[in-house]
Structure formats: C-alpha cells, structure tokens
C-alpha cells in the first residue's frame, strides 16, 4: 500500500517506461483512495438529510400528513429500474474497456448516459405531476415536501452531474486520453455512478416503500 511496500527494483528494471508506470501505479492508489473518501463524505451528506427527514417524520405529528396523497410507486419503480439498469451497463462498459473492446465499451457507455438521462426525465415528469396535480411543493407541503424534494433533488443533481461527467469521460476516451492500462478516470466515473445508484436504493425505500 504505502510507497515503502512496493516491490524493490521493479521500476529500475524497466528503464524509463517502468518508471512512468510505477509513478502511475502510485498516483492511481492515491487518487482511488481520495475519490473513495470523497464518496464517503458525500454519503454523510445524504445520511444527514435522511436522518433529518426520518426524525421529523417521527416527531409526533402523525404520518402521513393530511392532504398528501400517496406517491406513484409504480412509476417510480420503473424509473428505478432504469437507473439500476444504467449501473449494469456502466459495469459492462468498464469491463469491455479493460478487455480492449472499444466497440462494446462505446455501446454500453452511451447506453448508460441515455438511461441516466431517461431517469432524469422521469423524475422531471414526477415533479411536474406532484406540483401541478397534487399541489405538493418544496416549501408549501410541510416536512414531506421539504424532505422529498430536498433529498430527491440532491440525488437528481448528482445524477445530472453524473451524466455530464460520463459524457466528458466518453469524449475523453474517444480522444485517446485513456489507454488499456491507464484508465483511472473511467474507474472513478464508474464508482461515482454506482454510488448514485446505491443512494437511490435508500431514497426509494424511505419515500416509496416505508
């Protein structure tokens, strides 16, 4: 893990080429750990709002609050499947990149971006429905509106960032920024995308299932 434990002489044996690779291996370890810690702190941000929402829900005013109809669980479930499906395509995109299969990589990467955009469209449809038909709003519907729109909005923001991020990564890979051996950007993008998926599991559970 630490610099100290790298195999002795591995770099020296391969001359210049080996030196660059060792530098890559070490900086990749740094960047991976840093990115994972960033995701941990992002997870704490979501957890705090989830705690706040559940705390308010249980602070004794009765649940569900009067005047709030139930959410459209079926639609949200289909939308969730779209998002989880994009997690699967993202996984295959990275696997194909590792196996030097650019055609399949491109297919799965574009599929991921499209599925992510579809999820956002679904969320926009759901927000519009809630606002115009059910008259549920961010500021005007008590703790339900505050919790629901803040948390799903934060998640939607993450998905939006993710779609842009994956698009940039895809364009970079088309322009040859990444190679078969050096593709940390794609790894980070995959981790981010799976993270966004996992957060949605929690949000779907607390808003639609319990």
């Amino acid at each position, binding site marked *: 893990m630490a*610099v100290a434990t790298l195999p002795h002489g591995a770099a020296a044996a391969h001359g210049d080429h080996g030196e660059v690779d060792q530098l890559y291996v070490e900086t990749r370890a740094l960047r991976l750990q840093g990115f994972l810690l960033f995701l941990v702190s992002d997870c704490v941000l979501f957890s705090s709002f989830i705690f706040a929402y559940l705390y308010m829900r249980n602070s004794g005013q009765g649940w569900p609050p009067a005047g709030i109809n139930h959410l459209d669980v079926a639609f949200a479930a289909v939308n969730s499947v779209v998002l989880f499906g994009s997690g699967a395509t993202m996984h295959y995109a990275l696997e194909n990149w590792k196996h030097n299969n650019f055609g399949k990589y491109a297919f799965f990467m574009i599929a991921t971006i499209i599925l992510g955009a579809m999820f956002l469209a679904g969320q926009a449809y759901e927000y519009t429905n809630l606002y115009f038909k059910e008259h549920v709003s961010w500021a005007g519907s008590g703790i339900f509106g505050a919790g629901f729109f803040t948390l799903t909005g934060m998640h939607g923001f993450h998905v939006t960032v993710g779609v842009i991020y994956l698009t940039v990564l895809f364009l970079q890979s088309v322009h040859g920024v990444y190679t078969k051996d050096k593709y940390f950007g794609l790894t980070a993008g995959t981790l981010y995308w799976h993270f966004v998926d996992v957060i949605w599991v929690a949000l779907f559970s607390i808003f639609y299932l319990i």
Partner: protein
Amino acid sequence: MSTTAEHAGGIAGHIHPEPQGFIRRYVFSIDHKIIGIQYLITGFVFLVLAGLLAEIIRTQLLHANGGFVSNDVYNEVYSIHGSAMVWLVVIPIVTGAFGNIIMPLQIGARDVAFPWLNMLSFWIFPVAGLMLFSSFLMGAPVAGWTEYPPMSLLGGPGTSMWAAAIFLVGVSSTLTGINFVVTMFQMRAPGMTFTRMPLFCWAQLATAPLLMIATTALAAALAALFMERQFGVPFFDPTKGGSPIMWQHMFWFYSHPAVYIMVLPMFGAISEIIPTFARKPIFGYKMIAFSSMAIALAGFMVWAHHMFTSGLAPYLQLPFMILTFTIAIPTGVKFFSWVATLWGGKIHYTSSMMFALAFVALFTFGGLTGVFLAAVPFDLHVHGTYWIVGHFHYVLVGGSLTGIFASTYFWFPKFAGRMLNETLGKIHFWLFFIGVNMTFLPQHWLGSLGMPRRVPEYDPQFQTWNDVSSIGSYIMTLGILVFFVNVLVSMRNGKKAPPNPWGARTLEWQIPSPPHYYNFKHIPTVFGLPYDFSQPLPYKGLEEELTDSPVHAGAH
C-alpha cells in the same frame, strides 16, 4: 543511497522543479509549507479581528448596565466572535497550518497527496472568512455561534451569509481531511510503519476523518438553515411542521467532534514538545497514539450531552452521560503519559515548553469541568450560564490557543528560518497565562451564582468578578500583542535558525531551516521511533541533507 534508489521511479523520486515568479511561489502555491504558512497568517489575522470582538464583549461587561455598544450590536458581536474563533482561527490553524507545514515533513514525504486540492482548500478559507465578517454589513446573526432556531430564523439577512460562509469553510475542511488521510496512508517514508509515526501525525490522522465526516454533517444542517431562511422550506420552524430540536442534533453531531478537531492536533504537538524539552522518550507512545483514535471515535457518540435541557428523553440522558464520562479515560491516558514523560526529565524551560506545560495544566482544568458538565444534574444547574463560557474557554484558549502558541515557538525556526525572541516569548507567556486564568476562572463563579451567558447587562451583584474578568482579558490581549511584535521583529531580525535548534529527533529537524522546496534530497528510511533520546537517530539516507550537494534523485 541504495535504500532510496529503488524508489526512484515512484512519487518519492518524482521532484517537480520549483516554480519561479511571485504568484506561483507565494500566492497560488502548491507547496504544502507555503500553504501552511498562508493558513497560519490568515488564521492570525482572523485571530486579531475576533479578538477585537472579544474585547468589545469584555468592555461592555465592565459595567452592570453595559453601555459600550447597543444590545443589538452586542448580540452580533458575540455571535461572530464565537463563529470566527472556531471556524476561522482554531480549526484552520491546528489542521490547515501546522498539519500542512509539519505532517508531510514528519512522515518523510515531498508534499501532500493532492497539492492542487490543498491550494483550493486554502483559498476557500479567506473567501469564507470575508463572507462571515461581511455579514456585519447586512445585519449579522444574533443567535450565538450555535445559531439555534427559531432565533436564527428571525435573525438579520446576515444569518444566511453566515450559513453560506461556514458551509464554505466546511468544504475547505473536508478537502483537507481527505488530503491528509490519503497522505498519511500512502506517502510515509520507507520503514515508517504506523507505529513509528510521530505522535503529531497520529493526532492529525485521528483528526482528519473528523474533518471529513463530521463537517459534512454540519454542511447538511447549514444547507437546511439556508434553504429555510431563503426559500421557506420548513425544516426547523415548528409552526410548519419542522423541528428546532433537529437543528441541535445536526449541529452538535458536528460540533462535538469539532471540539476534538480543535484540540487533538494540539495534543499531538504537545506530545512532540514535551519529550523534546524534557530530553526523555515519550512515555506510553502507543497509548497516546491509540487514545487519539479512541477520542475521535467516542466524539461521535456524545453529541446529545449539549442538549440535556432541550427536552431530550430521560432514557437517552443516561447513556450520553456515561459515554461522555468515558472520554475522560483516553484523555487521562494522555495527561498521565505527559506527566510521566516530564518525571525525572531534564526540563528546558523554553517559551515553547512553558506554553506546553501551561497547556497541560489549563486543559486539565477545562477537561475536568467538562466531566462536571457531563453529569446531568449538574448540567441542568449551570446550562446557559457563564460556567459554560468559563469551561469552553479553558479548553479553547487554555487548550487550543495555548497549544498554537507552543507549536509556533517550537516550529517557527523550522518554517521561517529564524528564531523567535525568547525574552519576548517569556513576557508573552506570563501575560497570557495570568490573563487567561484571570479572565476565565471568575466566570465559573459567576455561572454558579446564576449569571446567564449572552447578556449585555447583568445584576449589579456580578459586577466585581466581571471587572476582574475584563481586566484579565486586557492582560491576555497585551500578551498576544507581544507575541505579534515578537513574530514581526523576529521574521526580519531574528537569529538565523540552525537546522535543529532544539535537538529534536523527528524528521523535519534533520533538514535545513527552512526546508527546500522538495523537502528531502533523498527520501530517508526509518528504523524506529523518533523519541529515544539516548540512541543514535533511527534514519538512514539523510547524509546529504545538510550539505551543498545538488538534488538529483529522479528530478525532471
């Protein structure tokens, strides 16, 4: 030589050329030492500003009827004083300044893991500081540094600015935390196992996860407060279904660990200073290291002891009380270890050591009153009184700020290349030490008698001790002025610092003062703990550090 050559291809052998030009060198620098100094200077500037606010408070309280500033202004003053001292002075100095300057040197690294991120972390901080102080222009927050709703929902427009500013400082802290964890996990010199790491680094390692995790929880609370104030989203307003108690949970879930963010790094610094000036190996190295981790972990489980009077369910009070008591155990381990290190040592009474000894005494006092406060029956009696003010100023001024002075006297020769004046240091010490006790000790008595905190006027029976406290605060301020004079004079005219003026044994003292841009010509190999004063140094590969030989290890 052979020990370092094998790493020539990796980060350890990778030396960037030093940037030329003023801007890239001293303003938007990516060098951890320069960034640390930037943190230190900015932190001290905010210390002056927040200190002036403190003197407005103490001057107002010279008379039972106040009269120095209006009551509204008084509310703004103590709110910004507390916020600035916590988020703009103590946290940035103990983590951003000393963590940045010293930690990479002590682990034998060339820089932190992410130098550009480090630069970003720093530059967020002065911007956020200016935002915080600019809230005075638009009606500053009036609900104290804790900003409890519903008061904070009613405060002036500056309260939203306050929330945004603290949010930004939080982002800066989070990035610093991530940076430090990765640096210490991945970039230690060969042979420096975790159990050979200097205790200052252990303290930073315990603090960094707090910066990373607890600060994010505060960010959520601040974002919610901002959304409620600006867009009317009902989080905290009870009339719309929100809960003001929830703010207290979210705020203290951060702010109790923040107490340890503010003091753990200084525990680490004291653990370096005491063995150096007692000329003795530190007593209980592993116990001090692990107790930092224990304090950091336990710090997450005690937040509700700030809320005993907020309507917390009685069955929750007992576990929070007991958990809070248990934090005294790892803290006690540290204190007894320091005392045992001093025992039988050959103590050198330098300014740095005097401040370190004062730290031990004053923090013990503040820590003991903390154990008192953890007891629910006692807390119910003194909650919201000057007793609390006395308690947390003993840990923050007597602890963190005293630790900051001890660290500055200790490490100033290393990063500035000049010695601080010892005579001025002693004058600073005695004025500060007498001032601190005179200011904050009487506040315990005022609190026991029932004087509430955050009041601009008070019952005449409290006049005498308030006057003692105010005069003490002037003496303390005078001491700090002597310190600034010392720093400014010594920067230009101080004696040139040798590489190792104190005879200390950690890695940063084995290289020139101030260190080169690349820190080490060759990354050394470490064979043992840095505290065995009777033994030869446990490092190999440092032979060329103090010579004029050019740097060549894989430079490009």
